[in-house]
């Protein structure tokens, strides 16, 4: 099929799946999962250099090929607009001149508390405005509050990324109705505007169902990294993303209480 590619800000993705780099048992396993996921965009966090354990001089970038992957720096672990802006700028600095693509965008995460890791709407909007003014293309992790998503788009976000369910909860898209309205409201007269489901999916059918609703992509980490066989789950997610994209645009049959025959009635010998 000739599906048009997903463009977010200055970057073009070869897949509609964006994957994380956290929680892997080993960096080698992460690398295999990235390959299996068929994604060419991976999100990374910014943290202080460990100055002590020099035994592990291994850097995650040694396991991400700059020719194959676009990096999406995120502001995970930030709880205020100031923290978000500071981390976003450090992430840009890290990527600028690093040989990796990704310095021009950021995944904005401004969390409300350490327990639920749910997004904080006010800090999110405040940080978004500062980062947009600073020239960032901002992908915003947020709730499925329709009007909040509208404000986020109006404030200049490059993509709105509502959570299907809480980060790492594995519950999939708990409120497809909300996602449907978000698509209606944000894509009205602007069909190419990117809406990504970020966080919450647990398995392949969750991803397929999310894509069928009509979102432009899915971002996930725990569902792969936390599976018993992460590489296998990564393969499943790659296939499910494509399956959901195709099915969502193929015009599915309507749901009915029951039944229409798949075989013809005429010509039955027992008629």
């Amino acid at each position, binding site marked *: 099929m000739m599906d048009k590619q997903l463009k977010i800000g200055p970057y073009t993705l070869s897949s509609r799946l964006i994957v994380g780099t956290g*929680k892997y048992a080993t960096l080698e396993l992460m690398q295999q999962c990235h390959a299996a996921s068929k994604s060419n965009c991976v999100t990374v966090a910014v943290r*202080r250099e460990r100055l002590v354990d*020099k035994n592990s001089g291994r850097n995650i970038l040694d396991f991400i090929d700059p020719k194959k992957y676009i990096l999406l720096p995120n502001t995970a672990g930030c709880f205020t607009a100031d923290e978000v802006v500071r981390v976003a700028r450090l992430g840009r600095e890290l990527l600028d001149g690093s040989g990796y693509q990704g310095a021009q965008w950021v995944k904005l995460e401004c969390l409300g508390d350490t327990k639920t890791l749910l997004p904080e709407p006010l800090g999110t909007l405040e940080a978004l405005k500062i980062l947009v003014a600073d020239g960032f293309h901002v992908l915003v992790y947020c709730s499925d509050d329709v009007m909040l998503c509208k404000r986020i788009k109006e404030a200049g976000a490059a993509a709105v990324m509502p959570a299907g369910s809480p*980060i790492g909860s594995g519950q999939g898209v708990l409120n497809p109705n909300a996602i449907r309205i978000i698509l209606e409201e944000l894509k009205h007269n602007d069909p190419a505007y990117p809406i990504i489901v970020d966080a919450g999916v647990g398995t392949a059918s969750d991803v397929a169902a999310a894509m069928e609703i009509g979102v432009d992509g899915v971002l996930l980490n725990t569902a792969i990294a936390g599976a018993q066989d992460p590489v296998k789950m990564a393969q499943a997610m790659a296939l499910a993303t494509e399956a959901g994209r195709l099915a969502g645009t193929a015009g599915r049959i309507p749901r009915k209480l029951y039944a229409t025959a798949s075989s013809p009635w005429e010509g039955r010998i027992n008629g």
Partner: protein
Amino acid sequence: MEILLNGKKMEIPEKATIGELLALHKLAPVRVAVERNGEIVRRADFYTVRLAPQDQIEVVTLVGGG
């Protein structure tokens, strides 16, 4: 002289540059970003900017995340 590096006090040579500080810790400049007293120091300036006593330095890198 004493500086604060990633929240920890440490002694470093007088007038050391950021580049020298990174070298001390075997850190590849291309893999880090540096904040000096809250201001980002561009990578191009690592070898020209000299540290002063009590400077607060943050050296960050990329790690796995979702």
